[in-house]
């Protein structure tokens, strides 16, 4: 069982395939990936595409027999409407969680609207994924700070600090509601994190789908070659995400 916890329905895919996920899913098939958490792209790029892209993700999921696990987004600049849209994503669109890309979306996670979103996440037990590893709004420690302030909310570092910020991420590995998606770190950082973070809070992701290139092959091979105990790798590659889905 492999669950990819970091993918996108990229704008280039939408432009080419017009809401038909078959070719996108074929890439997952090539690598024997069972399911994937899928974030948008247009909705992270433009506020005015937010609602329609959230709805598109729902339709993609329906067309995939639920292999696509849709994750919506809102823009903190929307104020109270952001909270309403987040609630709609979870209640009406049946989304599994929310995703924020604070540097792309241009908003600090210290916004009071983010506080309301975190409370919503706790209320519905919906995880909140964050791009992390990038200044000035998406540093791993800034995101981990949310996990510290909202202990009932599951917060996912969707890159686990990327290439240089992962040591800061590790400093918060003791927080039971902070999850580490190993997506974009080096092989060596992956090995160190797998030794340091409790294995039950490790996830794996490929970042596939922003462009048309197959990024899964490389990132899957990285996870396979990393010096990680097999039981930990099994949890990271799918068992943790599966358990998470079953608990909701």
């Amino acid at each position: 069982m492999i669950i990819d916890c970091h993918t996108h329905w990229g704008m280039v895919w939408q432009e080419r395939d017009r809401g038909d996920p078959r070719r996108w899913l074929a890439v997952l098939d090539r690598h024997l990936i069972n399911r994937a958490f899928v974030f948008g792209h247009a909705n992270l790029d433009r506020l005015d595409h937010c609602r329609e892209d959230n709805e598109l993700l729902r339709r993609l999921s329906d067309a995939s027999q639920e292999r696509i696990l849709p994750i919506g987004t809102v823009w903190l600049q929307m104020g109270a409407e952001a909270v309403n849209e987040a609630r709609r994503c979870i209640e009406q669109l049946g989304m599994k969680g929310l995703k924020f890309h604070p540097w792309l979306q241009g908003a600090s996670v210290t916004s009071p609207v983010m506080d309301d979103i975190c409370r919503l996440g706790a209320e519905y037990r919906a995880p909140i994924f964050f791009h992390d590893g990038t200044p000035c709004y998406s540093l791993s420690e800034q995101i981990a700070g949310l996990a510290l302030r909202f202990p009932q909310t599951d917060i996912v570092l969707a890159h686990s600090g990327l290439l240089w910020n992962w040591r800061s991420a590790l400093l918060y590995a003791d927080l039971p509601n902070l999850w580490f998606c190993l997506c974009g770190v080096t092989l060596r950082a992956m090995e160190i994190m797998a030794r340091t973070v409790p294995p039950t809070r490790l996830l794996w992701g490929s970042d596939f789908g922003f462009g048309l290139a197959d990024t899964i092959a490389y990132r899957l091979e990285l996870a396979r070659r990393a010096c990680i105990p097999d039981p930990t790798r099994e949890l990271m590659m799918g068992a943790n995400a599966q358990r998470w889905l079953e608990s909701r």
Partner: protein
Amino acid sequence: MVIDAYCALGVDREYDLVAERLLDEMDKAAVDRAVVAPIDRNLTVRNREGNDYILEAAAKHPRRFIPACSVNPWFGDEAIQEMRRAIASGSRMLVLHPLVQGFVADDELVFPIIGEASAERIPIYIHTGPPGNATPWQVAGLSRRFPAADFIMGHCGATDFWNDVVAAVRSVENCSIEASLARPFGFASFVEQLGEAKGVMGSFAPLNDLVLEWEQMRQVLPPERFPGVYGGNLARLLEKRAPL
């Protein structure tokens, strides 16, 4: 000649690469030669210790390793003297790592070192990427100021300065891009946009798996179509000082 443009040789924290293992991995990946550079601690402090370690390893394997040196610009004149000594002893490339060494890449602090490296006709490899003190445009700025120097933009600003790479490199004549950390699928796109002559393949072992990096890169940039990326482009820069 197939050359890996960047491997960090030594043991400390996440680094655990010794000569024998590197040679073994190079053989597995069909890599003829590798540029070897000091580990982070020796980029930052005790530069001479790191440079000597690299020079000794290269002296033992002169047909396989190409030694790079580093000095921390904060050491001022002492850094210049150490760089001269290392180059006179055989170093063929200067490595700067602004994040680790604690300066902004285009700070005037580094100008004397770059001037010296340029005069010695060795290429200057600069680690780039977040948080923001080693960006593609900072390297482009240095390239403009020192048009006779050859710059290698390590990691292509990976990850989140990737947007800037193509425009920054196009703005100057004397800047190449190096592959490690940019990931094969990302690097291929840069090479396609900038041209084959600008690309330099490096693995950044041991933070990355050398064999995997080479396997994956050859899949996305076939060597028969992009031969320079796998050694020729770097050799051209390195041989400005002396034949390899």
